[in-house]
């Protein structure tokens, strides 16, 4: 029980939830408009790489973050084009993007930075401790020395919920993900709404990648996302395709990882602990959370026959 009173456990929980929550909410945007998106892993890698590269070149981590968003937006725009305009199979396409993301970032890392990897002088995003929060009991544990992106994530969760469920554009995006034909006859532009969803999703996924490279570190490693894009996919489904649900699921996975870290050296095998989040993924998806229903037109391309 002492482990539960360890502030690092809770700070770690929140910190490890960030690279899951961003892509999970990103995926929610994409799938709510009806495009199945399993490309989060690849887009995160691209985001992570360009965040470091631009942060190094410009000397500003903020410009690095912007570059990550731009790169993520660009990759997802290509994904959107293939998925929406030429109606390619979205799962196969998503896997292609994942391989592409892993390959291109490894290639660019070697060609640009050589075998020594990204320079150690690369600036990273600031860590923030809000004094007012840090002294609140329990809550303070969470917010001790966190990346600025942690606070951005909290804002994104709330903003995404408001956007999807309380704006006219959000209603339209959801409608297109449920029944594009009905939306079309009412004068909505199905393709444009789907592009919007996929690209917002790509940008958010890339921010999740940037958090790994310039949020908690200041370097890029080959395949540094280590399957987080897929856990994010599980978090999205676990969270029933909602921002708050995705965030909650991300917190749960973050807790599992953080618990693994906190228990290290406690005679529990490390490998077993490292398995915890993945085991939890399977348990969660195997029905622990009850049925969740995907948007009705998720994964089905819309081709108006005119």
């Amino acid at each position, binding site marked *: 029980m002492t482990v539960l009173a360890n502030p690092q456990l809770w700070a770690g929980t929140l910190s490890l939830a960030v690279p899951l929550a961003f892509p999970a909410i990103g995926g929610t945007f994409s799938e709510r408009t009806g495009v199945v998106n399993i490309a989060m892993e690849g887009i995160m890698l691209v985001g992570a790489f360009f965040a470091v590269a631009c942060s190094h070149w410009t000397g500003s981590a903020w410009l690095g973050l912007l570059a990550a968003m731009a790169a993520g937006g660009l990759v997802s725009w290509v994904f959107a084009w293939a998925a929406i305009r030429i109606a390619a199979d979205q799962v196969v396409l998503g896997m292609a993007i994942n391989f592409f993301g892993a390959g291109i970032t490894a290639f660019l890392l070697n060609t640009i930075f050589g075998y020594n990897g990204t320079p150690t002088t690369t600036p990273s995003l600031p860590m923030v401790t809000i004094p007012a929060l840090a002294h609140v009991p329990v809550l303070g544990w969470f917010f001790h020395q966190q990346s600025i992106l942690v606070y951005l994530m909290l804002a994104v969760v709330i903003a995404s919920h408001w956007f999807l469920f*309380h704006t*006219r554009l959000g*209603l339209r995006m959801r*409608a297109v993900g449920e029944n594009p034909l009905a939306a079309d*006859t*009412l*004068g909505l532009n199905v393709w444009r709404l789907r592009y919007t969803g996929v690209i917002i999703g790509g940008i958010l996924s890339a921010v999740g990648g940037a958090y790994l490279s310039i949020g908690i570190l200041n370097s890029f490693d080959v395949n540094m996302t280590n399957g987080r894009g897929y856990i994010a996919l599980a978090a999205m489904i676990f969270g029933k395709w909602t921002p708050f649900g995705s965030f909650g699921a991300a917190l749960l996975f973050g807790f599992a990882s953080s618990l693994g870290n906190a228990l290290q050296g406690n005679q529990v095998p490390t490998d077993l602990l490292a398995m915890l989040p993945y085991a939890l993924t399977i348990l969660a998806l195997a029905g622990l959370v009850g049925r969740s229903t995907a*948007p009705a037109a998720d994964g089905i391309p819309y081709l108006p026959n005119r």
Partner: protein
Amino acid sequence: MEAFLEVRDVTKAFPGVLANDRVNLSLQAGEVHAILGENGAGKSTLMKLIYGLYQPDAGEIRLEGKTMHFQSPRDAIRAGIGMVHQHFMLIPALTVADNVVLGEEPGRIRYDRKEAVRRVRALSEQYRLAVDPTAKIGSLSVGLQQRVEILKAFYRKAKVLILDEPTALLTPQETEELFEVVRHLKSQGIPVLFISHKLDEVRAIADRVTVMRAGRTVETVPVAGATAQELANLMVGRDVVLRIDKQPASPGRAVLDVRDLAVVGDDKQERVRGVSFSVHAGEIFGLAGIDGNGQFELVDAVAGLLRVARGSIHLDGEDISHLTPAQRIAQGMSYVPQDRQLDGLVLEFDLVENTILRDFRRRPFSRAGWLQRLPALRHTERLMERFDVRPRNPERRAGELSGGNQQKVILAREVSRNPKLLIVAQPTRGLDVGAIEGIHRELIRLRDAGTAVLLVSLELDEILSLSDRIGVIHHGRLVDIVSAQTATREQIGLLMTGTQAPGGSEEVFNT
């Protein structure tokens, strides 16, 4: 008087088909105007032209005296044309209000949900379309969903309403309620265009009717002066036998004997509660009832698709209550399910594969585990010839056939097995007059050949004209069994609501 909506000499051709050939139609303000025609007569094409889904090759469409050039449904909606499609364009996961206002939501960036609910509520009061604006579409009955579609049209300020086969999926009650709505709209001066292939409905609701046949508008007549026979003849282009000529039945032994049967449905509710009846060789036993009263669970249980919770089913004296569907088939039972596309056929398979679906394991269709294509092909050709399936190409995929021909293929397959008992559920649903006539004839022929036929239909007229005895089911119980010779429409209709007729009838089964 200037017509409200006028179609003048409109022609629309598709590769190989002249779908609309110099079609004319004039809809007056405040009238209910029906378009009557068989499937494939060009009704849908005409509607799509009016709604902007297609553009005419020649001719013009005029609305309130002005020529219209709709490029898309958006243009038509903007001009005041409201359309309720046969297959609803609704989003089940959203609420009624969300669905109605979608595309023209109140609010600026924020979606003003309260205002949407308020507006939809006001509309539903104005047009007497009672429905809760905050309910999820997915939880509503088909009839209520249709109201939402009508509300959608009026939210967009429709000046004319087009209803495409609106009663196809409705229960008799819902149909009557829809007619109430249409009458109310008429009293408000809103013209309604009513597309249908059902004669009795057209006669019940329309002021005038335009009959279409083979892509042309044959004639427009006032409903008041036209008999059903005249309309049917206009529609089909030849004399149609509306009343079925049949000899009195000569029933033999009891082939199917159902005793105190109870069945639990998919929703864990008891849907059939102790039903007893028998079907004899050489008779058609019709099961009448309003949709959802357990009739389909009952036939599914007889066919072996639902478990028997209580009671027994005997086929020719043998207890088959717990046999698998395949074993029942082997005992001489055949089943024509109500959803021909879902349960009756494999749409992706060709007709040869579909005709041997039940017997592909047996000679001559397979030997030592290998399918024998040639015998199957010959068999299919023979059946297609006998049942007049068109086009007569056994290698077509089942999905490419019209509904009537699909039904003929299923009936041919089941009948070719010389069953002792044939169960038919909704055999003519969605078919046109010509096809219905053919199916009915075949059922009578089977009966005369000594087959026991159990017929379930939601069309009361079909039950009345085909059956020898009629069982009426209500809330999972058989209310009464009456002889079809003496039964009247009103009597059966009353029984369908669960009301026992005063005085009783000649053979009453207490259940």
